[in-house]
Every structure is written in structure tokens, then in C-alpha cells.
């Protein structure tokens, strides 16, 4: 089972520029969470802070009792072995073939025999659908393939916590759908805690158990997906609707005058009520996600503290219960 990640009062700035303040949230063990946010709100910085690559000025990130912000470097290096991080553009080693790239963590951290390494690596390569490309250099393949190779490398040590930095950027909608399914399948197989940073609405709507959103140097909200999906907070509904009207401007926020002018102008077509798309299920043949049962228990336990809209949405989801729609998705990896 995955490991719980507890973030308390995290504050980060670069020089005078504050990135976000006082972010507190808990990634429940084994569940899939998504962090949304307009471009440039420090989503990647947040990911890198979780893993200790960047040091926030205040706050703690607790994983298995190790604080990734303030603990000694030695403990942080040990704890990082629990992580798999998929970088935005793969961050593969340019001088190594895909095979060597994916085998790198195994060769560094385990004493496995070369034949065993080969077996594990080829298994992962098959999972992400890169069979046949293992001998190529990162410079010789497309951006989408680099991404998937980066994912395979992140998976090779069977991580307890998987972080994905914009798994969709640079991918077409079809490949994005495959990646979404792949992430859910991985969660079913590994039962790892996952955090996906993205601004892709399809992933946000179908993949996570929990969602959060960063905007204006704050964590707007974090909680079960229904909370965000039914939220009528202007920032959230603007973002999920992909509209121009709302507090998010071209460069971060709009000033009060622009907002007032917008309110006076004839209201554009009223936003259609958002429908909550059912969450993806693991591909047929895979075990059910163990996190789903745990989440159900957790969410039902806190349901009275949630806003009414979210409450009814959650009840509705769970009322459908076992006959939840399984989307006819082909198995991930074939041909993607």
C-alpha cells in the first residue's frame, strides 16, 4: 500500500516573488490526486518541493516521518527511493539508450543480475508501449515517447509514491486518454499514492480520487473530486469551464475594474451545469483498485463536513455503486 504524504504550511518564494503561501494538504495513501492550476502558478515547484529538490522557506512535507524540507540530506536521499517522478519532458539521460535509462535506477540501487534487470525493464517498456524502441537514444524519439520512457523509468523500482508532472503536455487527445487509463491501471497494480500535476480537464475529470487547485499564491481547495467538480467558487468554475469570464486573466489575475466591467456586460451564454463524469476503472483483467474501497470509507466518514452539492454528488456516485460505467478502453500500451 502507498504512503501518505502530509504537507503542512508550505510556503515558497523565489527572491521577492512569492510562489504560494501556507499550502496544507494530505495525499491519502494509495489514492490518485490531481493538482490543477493555470499555467505559472507553481504546480511544478510544488511537485519538486514534495520530493526535496526545492526547499520551501516554511512548512513541512512528511513522508514516513521524514521531513523532505528540513531533514538531513542522507534521510532525504533514502526517502527518495520510495518515489517515482515523471518529469515534464522525461528528463532522460541523453547519452544512454532508453533501455539503459530505464535500467539506471535498478543498476544504482539493487544488486540484481543483468538478466533479471533485463526482464524487469522489458516488462516496464511493454507496459508503456515502447517495445522495439529500447535501443534508441532519447534524441531519436518523439516527445510523447520520451514521456512514456520517463514514466517507465519512474516505475522501475516499484515506487510507493508516483508524481507526474503534466503527463499530457505535448500529447494528442487520444494519447492523453491512453495515459489516463495507464495511470489508473498502474494505481490498481501498484496501489501507490499518486499525484498528477496538470491543467488538462479530461485527466482532471476522469482520473483522480482527490483534486486540488492552486491559484493566486494559494491552495484554493483540496478534497474529494466531487468537491472541486461541484464547486461554485468563481476560479474553479472558470477553470473547469475553460471560459474567459472570471478571475483568471491572461497574466494570472484580473484587476477589480476589469472584473466589474465584465459583470456589467451582458452575461455570455450561461455556463452549462457541469456533469460529473464517472471515474475511470482499471482495464478488464486487472485487480480492482484497493484505494477505491479505502476512499469510499474515508469520504463517507467526512461527508457531513462537505458542501451540500458535493455531498449529493458523492451519494449519487456511490449509489450507482457496483454498476459504475466501465469505459470501453483498449488495454493501455497497444499501439499508443
Amino acid at each position: 500500500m502507498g504512503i501518505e504524504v502530509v504537507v503542512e504550511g508550505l510556503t515558497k518564494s523565489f527572491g521577492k516573488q512569492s510562489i504560494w503561501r501556507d499550502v496544507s494538504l494530505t495525499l491519502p495513501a494509495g489514492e490518485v490526486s490531481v493538482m490543477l492550476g493555470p499555467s505559472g502558478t507553481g504546480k511544478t515547484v510544488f511537485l519538486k518541493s514534495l520530493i526535496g529538490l526545492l526547499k520551501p522557506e516554511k512548512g513541512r512535507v512528511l513522508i514516513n516521518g521524514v521531513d523532505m524540507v528540513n531533514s538531513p540530506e542522507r534521510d532525504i536521499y533514502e526517502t527518495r527511493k520510495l518515489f517515482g517522478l515523471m518529469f515534464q519532458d522525461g528528463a532522460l539521460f541523453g547519452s544512454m539508450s532508453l533501455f539503459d535509462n530505464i535500467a539506471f535506477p535498478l543498476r544504482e540501487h539493487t544488486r540484481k543480475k543483468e538478466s533479471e534487470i533485463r526482464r524487469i525493464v522489458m516488462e516496464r517498456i511493454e507496459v508503456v508501449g515502447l517495445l522495439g524502441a529500447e535501443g534508441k537514444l532519447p534524441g531519436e524519439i518523439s516527445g510523447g515517447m520520451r514521456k512514456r520512457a520517463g514514466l517507465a523509468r519512474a516505475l522501475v523500482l516499484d515506487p510507493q509514491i508516483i508524481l507526474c508532472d503534466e503527463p499530457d503536455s505535448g500529447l494528442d487527445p487520444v494519447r492523453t486518454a491512453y495515459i489516463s487509463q495507464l495511470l489508473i491501471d498502474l494505481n490498481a497494480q501498484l496501489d501507490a499514492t499518486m499525484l498528477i500535476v496538470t491543467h488538462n480537464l479530461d485527466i482532471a475529470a476522469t482520473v483522480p480520487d482527490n483534486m486540488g487547485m492552486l491559484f493566486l499564491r494559494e491552495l484554493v481547495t483540496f478534497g474529494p473530486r466531487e468537491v472541486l467538480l461541484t464547486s461554485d467558487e468563481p476560479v474553479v468554475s472558470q477553470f473547469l469551464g475553460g471560459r474567459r469570464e472570471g478571475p483568471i486573466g491572461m497574466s494570472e489575475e484580473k484587476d477589480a475594474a476589469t472584473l466589474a466591467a465584465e459583470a456589467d456586460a451582458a452575461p455570455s451564454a450561461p455556463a452549462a451545469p457541469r456533469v460529473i463524469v464517472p471515474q475511470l476503472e482499471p482495464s478488464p483483467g486487472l485487480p480492482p483498485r484497493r484505494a477505491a474501497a479505502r476512499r469510499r470509507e474515508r469520504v463517507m466518514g467526512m461527508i457531513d463536513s462537505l458542501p451540500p452539492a458535493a455531498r449529493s454528488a458523492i451519494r449519487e456516485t456511490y449509489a450507482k455503486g457496483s454498476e459504475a460505467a466501465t469505459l470501453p478502453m483498449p488495454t493501455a500500451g497497444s499501439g499508443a
Partner: protein
Amino acid sequence: MITGALRQTGRLFALAAEVVRAVFRRPFQFREFVEQFWFVASVTILPAALVSIPFGAVIALQVGSLTEQLGAQSFTGGASVLAVVQQASPLIVALLIAGAGGSAICADLGSRRIREELDAMEVMGVSPVQRLVVPRVLAAMGVAVLLNGLVSVVGILGGYFFNVIMQGGTPGAYLASFSALAQLPDLYVSELKALVFGFIAGIVAAYRGLNPRGGPKGVGDAVNQSVVITFLLLFFVNMVMTAVYLQIVPPKGG
């Protein structure tokens, strides 16, 4: 401004200390070390030999003409040899290690940094200092020491050739004055200098390479700076080491 410079200096020393510590941490990256050793050697051997011939010649000619005016022509050999072994040779080695090897190391680490390869390595729990920097610094030091021997020999031969052939010196006087003035500690300090210079070149190159500022252009700037900073440090350290050496090792001729 001043605090900025001090901060950079402090970080440079911190990296040096970290590298020294990481040298003794298992597992040692032997394969990477051999590859880097071979690379640094391959880019420095030929230029070093080619530079040291004219350098030995210049010293021989200059010293030769001076000693001739003073009427001490028979001591040309000793003087030029000491200059080559103690001063010229470690500096030539250091300039080439920094200029050819160090710049390549800096560019390599810098481009890995901006491609996030180093971040990826850290995320996988592998320390870039131990995995990449230590083998490179050790390779620079090792090549510097060995190259120093080569440059000394080639420089002395060049000086001998020009003194004997061009200036009409006698081979016997050259060799006799050589063994009259030169002593083994001259060679030791020469090799020690080469070792220290190789370390400095490696550390500075790694430091600038690990911290490029702002994208691909930053890597170019970092390479440029690493070579300049290394040169500045080298000449300063060389001055200190020479002064200390002259104080603690009595000259043979006196």
C-alpha cells in the same frame, strides 16, 4: 555585490568539501572514472606536448642570452630546467586541463542540469556529486600529474635542443649545470602543483557546470567563467605554493 562574491566562494568551497567526502563513499564509480580519465587525457596530451616544446625553447633562448651577457653561459641548463620543471610545466598542464578538459566537463554538467538530468538523478536517490563530479575531478587530477611528467620531459628536451643547437651551448655544460642546481624536491613540488591545479580545475568546472544561470546561454557563460576563474585561482595558488617552497626547501646551489 561583495556578499554575492563571498557566497559564491563559500559554495565553491562547500562543493570542494563535498567532493572530498564523496571520494570515500562507496560505491566508487570506476567505469565513469576511466571514461573521464581517457577523455581528459585524449584532449590534452597532444596540445600539451606541442605547447611545451616552444615554451622550453623560449626559456632556453631568453635565459641563454641573459647568462651569456653575464658570462655564466654554462649555467643555462640548470636555470632553464628549473623554470620549466617548477613553473612552466604545472602551469601548462593546468591551463590545458582547465581549457580543454574543464570546459568540456563544465559544458557537459551544465547541459545535463538544464535538461533536468541532474534533478532526475537526485530524484532517483543518486547523488550527482558522487556519480558524476567525483570521477571527473579525480580524472582531472590524475591526468594533470601524469601530463606534468610528459610536459617536463618535452620542455627540457626542447630547451636542450635550442640551447645546444641554436646558441652553441655544449651538451656537457647543460647537463652538468642541470645536475648541479636541480634536486628531487623540485620534481615533487612540480607534481604536487599539478595535482592541486587539476583539483582546482575540476572543482571550478563542476561548480560552474552544476549552477548555470538561465537556459542554454547560461551554459555557454558558465563554461567561459569556469575557465577564467580557474586561471585566476591557478596563478594565485601557484604564487603561494612557490613562495612556501622557496622558504622551506633550501636551494641546492647555495
